[in-house]
């Protein structure tokens, strides 16, 4: 695993307005510490490691371009998380557009066979049911039960109210519970 670009200074001077703001975010460290976890987060939405890698790659490139997101490590990580969620959403939408009009199999769109084989049956089933939920439900569940974010953090990440997070999670879990019972 490489580091973020060798050419990027550890402490980036980001132009803001007419002045220059010194910022203290170490993108290299962010990449080192969070890249794998972000890919894992993306793969839970797009169910394909290569596609997840693309999504995270784009998120890091986007981070570098957004000087304002570099004010502090927490803001940068929150930006990356949002970018990964949006990138995964784009990837899923593009995949659906293609499937809507052609009977084709995208090489990137299907999980590797051995990945499903290696999961317990119950885990495979619950993840399959999650993928049938609306994307917003999937995002809330992912941030809550995998990223283990608080309701406030999820609300901030998704740009919705805390109440929306709470009700979305509750409804999604209820739907999931019923779907699991129906599939037994």
């Amino acid at each position, binding site marked *: *695993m*490489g580091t*973020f*670009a060798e*050419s*990027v200074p550890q402490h980036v001077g980001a132009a803001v307005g007419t002045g220059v703001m010194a910022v203290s975010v170490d993108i290299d460290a962010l*990449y080192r510490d969070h*890249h*794998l976890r972000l*890919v*894992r*987060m993306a*793969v*839970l939405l797009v169910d394909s*490691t*290569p*596609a997840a*890698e*693309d999504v995270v*790659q*784009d998120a*890091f*490139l986007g981070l*570098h*371009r*957004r*000087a304002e997101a570099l004010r502090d490590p927490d803001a940068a990580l929150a930006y990356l998380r949002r970018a990964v969620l*949006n990138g995964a959403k*784009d*990837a*899923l*939408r*593009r995949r659906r*557009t*293609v*499937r*809507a*009009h*052609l009977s*084709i199999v*995208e*090489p*990137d769109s299907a999980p590797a066979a051995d*990945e499903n084989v*290696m*999961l*317990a049956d*119950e*885990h495979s089933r*619950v*993840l399959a049911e*999650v993928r049938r939920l609306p994307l917003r439900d999937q995002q809330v*569940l*992912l941030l809550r*039960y*995998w990223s283990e974010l608080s309701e406030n953090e999820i609300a901030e990440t998704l*740009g919705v109210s805390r109440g929306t997070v709470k009700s979305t999670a509750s409804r999604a*879990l209820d739907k*999931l519970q019923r779907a*699991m019972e129906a599939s037994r």
Partner: protein
Amino acid sequence: MTDIENLLRDAYRARADLVTEDDLTLGAPEAPAGPVSDQKVGSRPSMRRFALPLTVAATVAALAAGAVILASRSTHKTTPPVVDPTPAPPAQITFTVPKVNTWHNIGPGWTVALTSSAKTTFTLVLVDPSGARTTITTLHSDYGQILDWSQNRQRVAVFLAPKTGNASLVVIDLASHSQTSDALSGIYQFQGFNDPEGTSYDKVVDNPSGHGQSIAVVPVGSAKLTSTTPTHTLQTLQGSAIVAYVNGRPVTISGGASIAVRSGARVLASVPSPGGSCAPVRVWSTRSVLVLCSTGLVTVSFDGGHSVLVSKPDPGIKENDGTMNYPYGLSDAVTLNGQTYVIEGPPCGSAYPVARLDSNLVPRRVGSLHGVDVSGAVTGATDKALYLLQIHGGCPSDTGTLYRYDPAANTMTTVLSGVTAAITVSQPFFR
């Protein structure tokens, strides 16, 4: 925690743990800091970064068609950095309009449209600026979209897809009404006609070397459209790129950290992007290009590199919902009767394609004009009018009505009804 919560948490962990460092094929992305090359080390070429030399309507059509993919398509090859052999000279460049003798003297305000009165029958219609219609031919399929209209205005490429069986790309000659068909059986990245006469297609293919992608020129009717081997390589694609003309010769304009005009590999001119990294949209004037940046739509001049903000982001678009151009849904802009109209994302779902700018250059969406819902598509613009295709239900494949909106006269005129797709010839540089 309830049982379902525990099960979900465990399933997430189990699935995520299957991804290890060893599975990852990409290295870290390089920061987009180079003044000329915008290809990222270790990143996969992504079609999403390519702005396309297609018309607005054709882009919409292609997005809807699906078979001719203009959106992202990941590959699993890393791409080496592209280094231009010569540094960019001081930028001063004049864009021109390619000189093409058009069939039937077709010019701004003419429209070619696909109409449908029955579910499996489409009719190709030519409409002149006065509204007079000529029926060209009837096509049978479950789905039809116009993909491109040749620069000499004699040939139209139509994508047809039946519910079962192979889709096809049909080129129709407006003069003779003859048809040339190519079967499709996979994913295609179709860039539009390659030549002014519409005798060949531009198609994106993976380079045989495995590094990067190229445009292959495929003759219409050659039965080579399904080939994955390029017959001719026109140019190597580098990041965002559109095609333009300088002194009558084709050039590419690429985005990224700089807006660079290239003839082949040679850099003719280069100016820094006005907002970090920008993607070219189209040529705006003889000396400037419209680019999309995180700050909005901006014109960049090749006379010294100064930039002018045309439109700020639409505050109504809080996040990219997948139907909008990343990140703010802005697609294009056109000025009519002293008022700038911003064209927003593809007309699908809840998109609102037309917005007027307020005095602070913030887009304010136009929901309806003269009582007509205009959240469909902009098919073209002349120096006097916008051509708007109202699509019922918001998404292509439904039929709608094509209108001509004249801001100076404050009129909204019906051009054609029952339309599924249309391209209207615009003023030079609009597209």
